[in-house]
């Protein structure tokens, strides 16, 4: 769907994006992760042609980026807002027209979405009369109205209440099922673990890690096991590396995850097992490890 090839962007003395290459598979939910200032927003602005490129190329389905491509993108920036003095309907039509839609088709689409969210009576209301949560729904509609093939959400859940967060997560899944490709950019990595399949971790303008979340977790796991139990642990438990220990639970590290059954056998002899579970690293932990790995090298 989208391919970035060696893109670089400098701001005065800072290199915001440094020779970054990335391929976003079609019909996927892709996470662009990294701390604040890593270059995520700059990368996204380059894709949206808000910021220019110093060097590198961008391809949409093997076609080199051109101005008309902005019409197939739906972008919800981190800094988002609406005209407060405009009516909801007028505003949606206007923003859709700027994306190249005919006003008639735009109106049909608007009705579809307003009905979907059961808010058709908002059409003639001014945005300033709506609550924050209501405005967020309108904002979402402006992003998806023109049926974009590529959707980009920059920090989509900041400022969203839990109900809207859930609604929008579900809508995003539906959009994916209907064939859209979705890019998620956030520094709150735990937010995307459940929705993304593929991710790229960015730090200081460069990609330090990328791949399928499950595979990454496998790759970075440390063979930590959580055991909740009743009774007294066997004496030689110190042979394993203890990560954390409480009265009725313990986290152990084993050298090889094939040995998990051996550990379980060993434990069964003396305690009653309530939980036996491998702890996979969170994306946050993976990120921190990856950054450390970078600096160690």
């Amino acid at each position, binding site marked *: 769907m989208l391919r970035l090839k060696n893109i670089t962007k400098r701001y*005065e003395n800072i290199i915001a994006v440094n020779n970054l290459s990335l391929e976003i598979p079609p019909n996927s939910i892709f996470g662009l992760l990294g701390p604040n200032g890593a270059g995520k927003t700059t990368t996204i602005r380059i894709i949206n042609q808000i910021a220019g490129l110093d060097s590198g190329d961008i391809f949409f389905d093997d076609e080199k980026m051109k101005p008309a491509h902005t019409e197939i*993108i739906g972008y919800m*920036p981190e800094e988002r807002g*609406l005209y407060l003095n405009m009516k909801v309907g007028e505003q949606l039509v206007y*923003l859709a027209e*700027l*994306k*190249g839609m005919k006003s008639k088709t735009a109106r049909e689409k608007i009705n579809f979405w307003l009905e979907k969210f059961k808010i058709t009576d908002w059409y003639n209301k001014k945005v300033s009369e709506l609550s924050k949560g209501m405005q967020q729904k309108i904002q979402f509609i402006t992003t998806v109205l023109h049926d974009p093939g590529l959707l980009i959400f920059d920090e989509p859940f900041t400022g969203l209440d839990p109900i809207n967060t859930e609604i929008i997560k579900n809508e995003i899944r539906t959009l994916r099922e209907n064939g859209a490709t979705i890019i998620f950019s956030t520094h709150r990595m735990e937010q995307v673990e459940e929705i993304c399949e593929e991710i790229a971790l960015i730090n200081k303008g460069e990609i330090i890690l990328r791949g399928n979340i499950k595979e990454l977790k496998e790759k970075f796991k440390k063979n930590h096991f959580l055991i909740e139990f009743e009774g007294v642990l066997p004496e030689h438990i110190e042979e394993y590396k203890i990560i954390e220990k409480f009265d009725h639970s313990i986290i152990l590290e084993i050298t090889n995850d094939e040995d998990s059954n051996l550990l379980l056998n060993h434990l069964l002899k003396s305690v009653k097992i309530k939980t036996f579970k491998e702890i996979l690293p969170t994306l946050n932990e993976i990120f921190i490890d990856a950054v450390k790995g970078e600096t160690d090298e």
Partner: protein
Amino acid sequence: MSKIFKIIKREYLSRVKKKSFIILTILIPILMAGLMMTPLLLSRYKSGSTSIAVLDKSGLFKNKLDNTDNLFFNYFDGTLEELKQTYKSKYKGILYIPVINIKSPQGIKLYSENQFGMLHSIYIENQLEKIIEDNRLKEEGLDREYLAKFRVNLNLDTVILSKEGEKSSDSKLSAGLSYVMGFMLYIMLLSYGTMIMKGVIEEKKNRIIEVIISSVKPFQLMLGKILGIGAVALTQIIIWLILGTMISTSIMLIFLPEMLDAQSAQVTQIASANVNVDNSQIYEIIDSLKAMNIPLVLSSFIFYFLFGYLIYSALFAAIGSISDDASDNQSIAMPVILPIIISLFIMINVLEQPHSPLAFWSSLIPLFSPIVMTARLPFGVPGWQLALSMFLLAVGFVFSVWMAGKIYRVGILLHGKKVTFKELKKWVFYK
């Protein structure tokens, strides 16, 4: 292109549909009309009539003072002392004329309890003078009709010697027109420039800006905004012109006959000369309007209005893009507001000396020329100066839009940061 049109449409409609715009556009001409009409109406509905008791000891004036609509003369015999006791019941004052020598009339007095209105006392004075003059003429064996044949009415024509030939001019009229046009430009540049700035700040503050520029180029948005608001300005001017013409025409229709009557009556009475004085002045004004080349003045005015608006609106847009909260706009907009104010000061000087070096140089500098050159136009400006000034203004416009576009592009995405001039310079020269 069609997207710019959509932006223009939104910027235009969202402002024209506002109540404040409708009120301002329609209310201002009506208020102005009210201001113009109040004195006329007041003069029309003067409090009742005034009667004056005339005690004429000389016998020259009896039944010769002309009554007007609201000033009546009644003649009495008797003594002044008697009259002083009794006049109050019916009369506002006593006009006492002793026996006089018509060669040096003295001792004529107007007694009253309250101060007499200025117009009335001038009128009475004129009447008395006229009658005394008539008497003196009669003594010499002449009459007014005979004398009128010798009356000369002269107007000094001021003529400009220029390469295109001789042109008559009226410097008062030119100055009046200059002032009106220059001041109109001043008001328009300031108010619509500020409107642009506010529009840009609104988009930045609302954070909608990034949504919009993911669909259109920042430059398109800026241009659409400038043109859309420019269309609002044009609409307002056109409505004002139409309303102004309608109102002034109706005022003329209501009051003109009356005014002409009053004026001609005054002319005959006061100057007791021919009525042509007025007409010849009107012809003179028409003459100098012809000499002024009105089509050129008006088309140049429109040119300077359009380009002046464009050059300043681009700068106001740039200023709007780098300011963050509405409170510090005033200080940040100063570099753009200042040249407009300076232009007004230069204009006032130019009205006195329309061809001074200051007038010449400042009507070439793009930031000053819209107001200064507009003010110079009615006085007649050499063709090459006008052409050069217009050319430089057009160049200045291209430059300011280019520069504003560069600043705007970076500025609108910047939040919570004070921008220095050094940084601005860098933005302008970014690739």
